[in-house]
């Protein structure tokens, strides 16, 4: 049990430390693809460090909710990272929450952030909240369907056992998972506010989704939200890796096994980040009214994944 706790701590710490690095890596790849020299890999850490040193400015009329939300959102994302089998399938917290709870935790963070944006009462806060909820309402069912497709194979909605089953069969990519994989990629892009759904680097208020929600935050509050955003990207990448490329996960909870699993995870994340950067660099942002269509496609593909699973009976 003690080693289990140590392993769990290691997994959480790894997530906290690696998440900003993953964002930095994607930014680096994007810069290179634009013929620019890139900022250092740990640039997001430097930004977080700076933000923690700055003071908080509260907008007029901000309620206590506004100040509480960064901490709550951050806590949600840490929880999400803790229950995802990032390094091992055998961690104490993994049994606490299943896939449905994970979707709930992610949805909670979204609702809190939208509430905080509307709390200030600026036009852009409400605009961003409205758009973000639109994305969320459509993305969450699709995400659930993807997780169900995987759960059908494992006869369990616990993430750890799903991944365990997937990792230890002779051919890991099932036909149903091909559909689920495409659907999951589409949902992840939308949920993390990446191109083509949202542009994380835009300076245009009128086109923003996620950025519009956090315009009023400053200093440590902003740092927590930025950190939470990179944790979210990290969480989604890890779910994707665990479901579709589970090889190399530690099957027990000894810290040594986890330490071996870490470099494999880093390598897979690096590859995934590079692919994300390429995909973002070659595509333009879609119109906002195409987003529902886009997410409807993801949902239908996830449902077909379930159907294919039932048809092939495997």
């Amino acid at each position, binding site marked *: 049990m003690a080693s289990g706790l140590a392993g769990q701590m290691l997994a959480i710490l790894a997530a906290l430390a690696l998440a900003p690095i993953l964002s930095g890596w994607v930014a680096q790849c*994007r810069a290179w*693809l*634009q*013929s*620019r020299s890139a900022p250092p890999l740990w640039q997001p850490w430097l930004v977080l460090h700076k933000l923690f040193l700055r003071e908080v400015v509260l907008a007029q009329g901000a309620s206590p909710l506004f100040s509480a939300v960064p901490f709550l959102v951050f806590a949600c994302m840490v929880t999400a990272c803790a229950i995802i089998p990032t390094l091992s399938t055998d961690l104490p917290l993994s049994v606490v929450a299943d896939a449905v709870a994970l979707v709930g935790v992610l949805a909670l963070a979204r609702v809190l952030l939208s509430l905080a944006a509307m709390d200030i009462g600026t*036009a852009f806060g409400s*605009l961003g909240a409205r758009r973000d909820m639109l994305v969320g309402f459509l993305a969450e069912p699709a995400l659930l369907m993807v997780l169900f497709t995987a759960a059908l194979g494992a006869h369990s909605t616990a993430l750890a056992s799903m991944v365990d089953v997937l990792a230890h069969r002779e051919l890991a990519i099932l036909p149903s998972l091909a559909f689920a994989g495409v659907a999951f990629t589409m949902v992840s892009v939308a949920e993390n506010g990446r*191109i*083509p759904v949202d*542009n994380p*680097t*835009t*300076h*245009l*208020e*009128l*086109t923003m989704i996620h950025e519009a929600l956090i315009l009023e935050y400053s200093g440590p509050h902003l740092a927590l939200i930025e950190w939470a955003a990179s944790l979210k990207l990290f969480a989604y990448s890890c779910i994707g890796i665990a479901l579709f490329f589970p090889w190399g996960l530690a099957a027990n909870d000894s810290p040594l096994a986890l330490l071996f699993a870490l470099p494999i995870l880093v390598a897979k994340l690096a590859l995934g980040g590079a692919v994300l950067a390429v995909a973002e*660099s*070659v*595509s*333009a*942002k*879609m*119109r*906002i*009214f195409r987003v529902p269509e886009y997410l409807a496609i993801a949902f239908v593909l996830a449902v077909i994944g379930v159907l294919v699973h039932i048809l092939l009976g495997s």
Partner: protein
Amino acid sequence: MEPSTGDSRPMQGGAPTHDRTSASPPALLIRQAFPSARPMGGELATYHLTATQAQWSMAAAAISSDAGNRPESPSRLIALWGASDADGRPLASAVYGLADGLLWVDLPLDPQSRQYPDLSRAFFFAGRMQRAIFDLGGLRAIGADDVRPWLVHARDADARSPATDYPFVRVSGAGVHEIAVGPVHAGIIEPGHFRFSVSGEKVLRLEARLGYKHKGIDARYTQLDPILAGRLAGRVSGDSTVAHAWAYCMALESAAGIELPPRAAWLRALMLERERVANHLGDLGALANDAGLAFGLAHFSRLRELWLRESDALYAHRLMMDQVIPGGVLVDLDASMVPRIGQACRSMAEEVQRLRAIYDEHPGLQDRFRGTGTISTALARQLGMTGLAGRASGLGRDLRHDHPGQPWSALSVHLCLSSQGDVAARVAIRFDELLESLRLIEAIASRLPPGTHHRALRLPQGHHCGAGAVEGWRGEVLVGLEIEVKGDRSRIVRCHSHDPSWQNWPALEHAIIGNIVPDFPLINKSFNLSYAGHDL
């Protein structure tokens, strides 16, 4: 000078150099009404008249109905402004574009009532100009519908947030709400306030509130020496510095009645085209970036930087400010630079072609560009659009093409035209004009006439008027100027710089109708109008 003679003012150096036989209907009509009208000297044929109120309205009606009746008619209002003449009496001035040149009408006003007949019914975009005229000089258009302030927001300097006091037109209805943006924007954009009335994401109406950059340039001109004021003209809108400075110098040279050395005109044209290339490169990158394709911005901003560095090497200034001076240009072009310019143009054209292919083939980008922010040709004509945005909507007007003075007559400028009127059309026109400008630059550099690049300007004694119009990258830039020289003292009596943004800002408000809110930055960038040039 009697205000009611309806006669043309005597002009200095008024040999009619551009008198053409094929006059347009309104030009004929006006010649009948003003029998003694003669064009001023200068590169562009300009008729300058002092009108009565009846003649003022008659000219507007004739030109407006001609523009409405004949789709291909070039008749249009270019600029409208208010000023005081040398004796301090109020004056309203309008400049029209006709088939054979410009028509400048001055209307002296009664100093007590300070009123002039309204033009906004004949020319849609004149409404804002009239509001600006009232803000700046207290002259009122008789019977104008919209009398809200425009350029001057609050006379009281410490009034808080002037935008909230402004009576915006409100749209009411189920589910309609307002989004207010600005004046300070999130990106690096000039300040302006936009009020959207939206239903969901769809824009029902947009109203712009400009004037944040109002610095009082027309008033500032009168404090400066006519020769030095060229520096101010070059700073009306920094991205069109060559066009504005050239238009000012053309006006001053026409007032002084001097002939520009041919080489100077060619060198100015070279800079004007360089400016066009630089701005189109910047816009093409920014347009892709606004559609989420940062790749486009990276590569076009790279090309723009290379281009600006080349300008820096030639003129020691990246934007070529203060290079066009009264009487010519500041520096001559060294013959050894000609091959280098040609080489730069060819390699630039190659790079642009390559990027154009990527833009044209990119599904996401084309999906954002096509059908977005459409202005039909008919609407464009009604709105009186001009310049690049006008050409994208099928209005084939280009001063370099329509009134080819030197050096354009020797270069036969190709008119780039599209009738689609959407963002994609404005992108395509930019690509076409960019490549055409690169061709022109190479041609100009290789065929530069010999001679001096600058001739000292001596201002003749007395009162003189002059006008200058130049096709800048955004559209036709116009300067109307009156100087007074007494002994060795010279001063500017009145001067007005007109930027084509005046015509196209109202068009932007039409272009967005029915589009979605997140497409506004893209549509706005496809017009890329000047706030500084408009706010003066």
